[in-house]
């Protein structure tokens, strides 16, 4: 993996709000095509870092390169090559499946014929061509999540950011969802997952655990479990968080 192409480079990233240091000297690299888990409790600095990586906010200092573009000077270029899906906001409930596809395709500058072609591919791949004209609000949550992801990668972004993508869904849907993610990663799309559901973390190729604005652990899940002598990532996280509380 180390030899692979670096798609996100973060070095000594600091973000301050007044006196409050939200991100304290973050350092990590993300490689093309990997599924990278970004974990942390609420308030650990996750959201701040994601905003910077998505070009929505500027770092106070440090080096942040996303898909070859500098987060300081080229945030608009970053926005064009990423996709985004969150658990809370994903698709418009009062539009049909196809209308949602057309809307997001249009936002990312796909031509009409591209949208048409890709939406057909998408619906066939998910095996739901008959849901094309159904309102998003009327289809089951599991399908919504899978659709939302497929739409987030419709414009073939270099990186797609997923925010707690499978929180609360049933175990079968969750697995189908992760199969979609792996498929996208095979096609070279980098998947950046932020979550505080530790069982979601188990599915990532590598994870980075954040606490109090600092990187506390970085590596493959199995590696981390060994280092912390823990059975699950939840245990790893627990140990890190408890240390945190004691200091």
């Amino acid at each position: 993996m180390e030899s692979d192409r670096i798609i996100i480079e973060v070095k000594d990233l600091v973000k301050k709000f007044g006196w409050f240091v939200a991100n304290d000297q973050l350092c990590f690299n993300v490689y093309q095509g990997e599924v990278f888990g970004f974990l942390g409790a609420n308030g650990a600095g996750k959201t701040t870092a994601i905003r910077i990586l998505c070009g929505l906010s500027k770092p106070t200092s440090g080096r942040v390169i996303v898909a070859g573009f500098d987060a300081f000077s080229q945030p608009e270029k970053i926005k064009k090559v990423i996709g985004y899906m969150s658990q809370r906001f994903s698709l418009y409930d009062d539009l049909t499946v196809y209308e949602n596809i057309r809307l997001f395709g249009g936002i990312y500058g796909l031509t009409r014929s591209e949208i048409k072609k890709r939406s057909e591919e998408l619906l066939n791949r998910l095996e739901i061509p008959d849901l094309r004209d159904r309102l998003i609000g009327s289809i089951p949550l599991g399908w919504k999540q899978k659709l939302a992801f497929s739409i987030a990668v419709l414009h073939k972004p270099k990186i797609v950011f997923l925010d707690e993508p499978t929180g609360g869904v049933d175990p079968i849907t969750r697995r189908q969802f992760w199969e979609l993610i792996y498929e996208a990663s095979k096609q070279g799309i980098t998947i950046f997952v932020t979550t505080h559901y530790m069982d979601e973390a188990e599915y990532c190729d590598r994870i980075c655990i954040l606490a109090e604005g600092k990187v506390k652990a970085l590596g493959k899940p199995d590696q981390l479990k060994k280092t912390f002598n823990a059975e699950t990532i939840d245990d790893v996280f627990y140990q890190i968080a408890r240390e945190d509380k004691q200091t």
Partner: protein
Amino acid sequence: MAKTLISCSGVSKHYGDVEALNNINLDIFSGEIFGVIGPDGAGKTSLFRLVASLLIPDSGKISVLGYDSVKDYRAIRKKLGYMPGRFSLYQDLSVEENLAFYASVYGTNIEKNYHLIEDVYSQIEPFKKRRAGKLSGGMKQKLALSCALIHSPELLILDEPTTGVDAVSRREFWEMLKRLKDKGMTILVSTPYMDEAKRCDRIALVQNGVILGVDTPEMVIRQFNFKLFAIRSEVRHEIIRALRTFDSVHQAYLAGQLVHFTQVNPETDDVERYLMDQGFGDVDIRTIEPDIEDCFINLMMN
């Protein structure tokens, strides 16, 4: 056998066209921690609201603490401690004011019942002047539990108390529930986290408004009647694809860094051999004990 505190028989509930619960039969005994486990939309909240007398079943009967949930709702409400899914606190009131208010709603006060909540409340007491809206998820959860306990209820109903709460607080919370149980409290709790099942005395697995199974976590696992293989590989996705074309396949699915696999004829068909033939030479296959999530998937498939 312990006394039955809650008994649901043939309970169904729908909203418009949506069937939230379908023919639920369930008994919950005095002094146990009973976990209702299932994903969002499974019907957990509807079930709890029915038991708490906040909803009326379309059909079936629910008896809580010996009272009928529809006719005798007043009697039930006096003896119930209920914590809804979202921590129902007044964000603009302080920790102490929230607690004092909920105490007064039940005609009691903090001093009188302090011993009931001491274990939980002492952890947030240093912040008692802080507004509830400014608390962390874990602290909100502890305050909400204190509020639900302050009137010395006979039965505690907690709807997803650990959702959105950090790992440390989650564990502390389950330890608190254990201590409450040791004092004789009956606790009905729901969670979407399968790994929390083992913290309960008995569990019900629910999906799409139906109970897939009710038992102790150990028994649920023992009823898993397949040999479960865990396959470790860098190419999980390809392995799953290959396994699904295997004649003997029952199920093949992802489980974190592993692939879990069950088959219909483990005696005659050798999965290791099959994978070898398919060109996956370097895989680590072992049989493992299933966890609740494996059981859940298995029951969902039936």
